[in-house]
Structure formats: C-alpha cells, structure tokens
C-alpha cells in the first residue's frame, strides 16, 4: 500500500534522498567523470535516459515474475535486462542520431555497471511503486544524479586551481567535497511531506 504522491516521490528521489549523496549509488562515475563540467552533464543525461527506459522494463519484468512465482530470478533478470537495455539504447542512438552517439559514446557501456540503475530497479520493486510512480521515480533519481554530478564537476574545476596537500590529492579531496555536498543536501529533508 504505497500512496505517495508523484510530486513527493520526485522531490524525494532528486533532492532529499539524492541517489549519490544519500544512497551512495553511482559513486564510481561520480568520482570518475566529474572532472569536467561538459562530460558530467552528458553522463548525467545519459544515465537519466537509461534509468527511464530501465525503470519501465523492470516494472514489466516484475509483473511477469510475480505471475510466474519466481522471485529468485529477480536479480538475474534485472541485470540482464539492464545490460541489454543499455545495448539497445546504444544501437538506437547510433542509428537515429550519430552526432548524439559521438557525444554520449563512451559513457553508455559504462552505465551497465552503474549501481544507480540496478538500485533504482530494486527500490521501485521494494516500495511497490506503480508504473507511473516508477517513471516519476526514475526521472527524479536521474535528474538528482545529474545535479550532483554537475555540482561536483563545478567544484572540482575550481579545485584544480587550489593548492591541495600532497596526500589529499585525487580521491581524498573529492570525498571531502562530496561529504560537504551531502551535508548541504540534508537541508532538503522534510520538503517531501
């Protein structure tokens, strides 16, 4: 019995419980490709797109698995569906818009092992979201991910000009920035109710 309104699902997924900063999903690309603003926004948008498609697909799979009484196949089918979705999206974009494909190109295969996508599928199943709720959830999560990535990239571009102690260079300083961002996002708590 989940009766959350669509708006509160959206706010919850994008700001209050931001996938990166509160659930720690998709940390790898968050630390990996957040060096430049342009790449960060592209990565964010491709993840959002794949999330939307994967969300609809896994919703269908879940209905099918419930009908078949085979809950133990959930994880395997989700991961297979996500991997093939990414592949299909890649081929589709290549055919429709080669220009877009060149800009997204290398990011698409990386998304398969992005825990944010599988996390999204698992959360929407655990919470018993309906189709529309799932789509809104995916949209919110994707935009929240993009926002976190862009913020991080903006800060890191500035950080390059700063003098960081030897031992803190690289991951350590990024983690501290992420921690501060995460604290900032806590200010959104309570918006959704």
């Amino acid at each position, binding site marked *: 019995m989940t009766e959350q309104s669509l708006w509160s699902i959206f706010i919850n997924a994008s700001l209050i419980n931001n996938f990166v900063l509160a659930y720690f999903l998709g940390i790898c690309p968050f630390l990996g490709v957040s060096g430049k603003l342009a790449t960060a926004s592209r990565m964010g948008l491709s993840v959002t797109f794949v999330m939307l498609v994967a969300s609809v697909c896994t919703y269908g799979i879940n209905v099918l698995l419930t009908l078949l009484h085979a809950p133990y196949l959930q994880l395997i089918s989700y*991961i297979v569906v996500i991997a093939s979705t990414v592949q299909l999206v890649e081929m589709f974009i290549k055919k429709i818009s080669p220009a877009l494909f060149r800009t997204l190109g290398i990011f698409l295969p990386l998304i398969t092992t992005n825990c944010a996508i599988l996390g999204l599928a698992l959360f929407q199943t655990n919470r018993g979201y309906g189709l529309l709720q799932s789509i809104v959830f995916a949209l919110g999560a994707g935009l929240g991910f993009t926002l976190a990535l862009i913020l991080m990239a903006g800060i890191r571009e500035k950080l390059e000009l700063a003098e960081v102690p030897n031992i803190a260079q690289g991951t350590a300083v990024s983690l501290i920035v992420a921690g501060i961002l995460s604290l900032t996002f806590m200010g959104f708590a309570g918006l959704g109710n």
Partner: protein
Amino acid sequence: MSTKPGEIIVTGPKDTDEFIKGVWAQNPVFVQVLGMCPTLAVTNTASNALVMGLATAFVLLMSNVLVSSLRHAVPKQVRIASYVAIIATFVTAVDYIIQAVSLEVHKSLGAYVSLIVVNCLILGRAEAFASKNNLKRSIYDALGMGVGFTLALLCLGVVRELLGNGTFFNLSVLPGNFQPWVIMLLPGGAFFVLALWMLLINRLKQGGPRD
C-alpha cells in the same frame, strides 16, 4: 578497473603474495577505490559492515573459483555476460542465506545485498585476475581482496559507530557523558571518515600523492 594486466605478472611468484596484495598494497577500497557504494552505505554500524564484507568476500570467492575453472571454456565474446550471470547467481544465493540466518540483519542491509552484483570489485577481479590465472592463485586472490574489503569496511564501521553512537558492536564503551557525533552516522560522515582513512594511508605510504 585500475588494475592493469601488467601488474599481475610483476607480483611475486609465491601464491600467498596474492593474498597479502589484496589486504594492503592493492586494497580494493583504500587503494583501488572500487566498490564505493556498499563501503559508504552500510558502514553506519560495525556489525552491518562485517556482514556486508563477508557477503561480498563470499561472492568474490565463489565467482573467482567458477570463472577460473571455466576460463578455457568461456569464449571471449560472451565472457562479460557469463561473469555477470555467475555473480548474480551467487548474490541471489547469499541474499537467501542471509534471510534464512537472520531476518533482522537482512532488514538492516536492505537492498544493498542485491547491489553486490554491481560491485565493480567482483567483476573487476573476475575479468582482470581469475580469467587469466589458475584456480589456486584465484582463490588466494579472492581471499586477499575479500579480507582487504572486509577490513576496510570494518575500519569505517567501527569509527562511525564509536563516534556516532558511542558503541562498539552494540556494546557501550564510551563514558556515559559522551555526546555522540551524530554526523558520523549521516551520509556526509561516511564521506569524511573514508577521506580521513585515505589521508592516513597515503601518509603511511611515504606521504606521496596517489597516482
């Protein structure tokens, strides 16, 4: 995957070296920065960290064993797909085993048990090590990486629980007038504690910057 194939040859001839490597020189969390999602998410108590570490180590061991034994049979084109299927199988198994042993533990870990599937550490070891090495070395490698991962998780879990709640594995250890640092248990605290551990380890490694 930051492990380059070349590095495997460089490591010593002894099989036990593969074990030591995972715990310290190539520690999956502190050095390779892999598997960040569970590292940060479930380390708010030491016991959660321990269960998560052991579950990951188990999946890592089983997938390394299977991948290594099948390494001559699996064609190159479909190897990633087969690895993912193998990993997903063992994660599902672990998920059910944890539920059978203790529902409480399963509830406190939530969806993060299933998310072991996308832990880049496991796929990384399957692709970079187990698919190229014999069974014995792969087992040592998995044990080393598993222990290294569990230790790293415990490092975070113990610190966060001690400072954030004043307890150590649910036992009160700090004096009663200790005011818990709640921030340690919040998501932000996870990032800070991990960053501080990395600073410490970088310092211990001669204070040079990481590559």
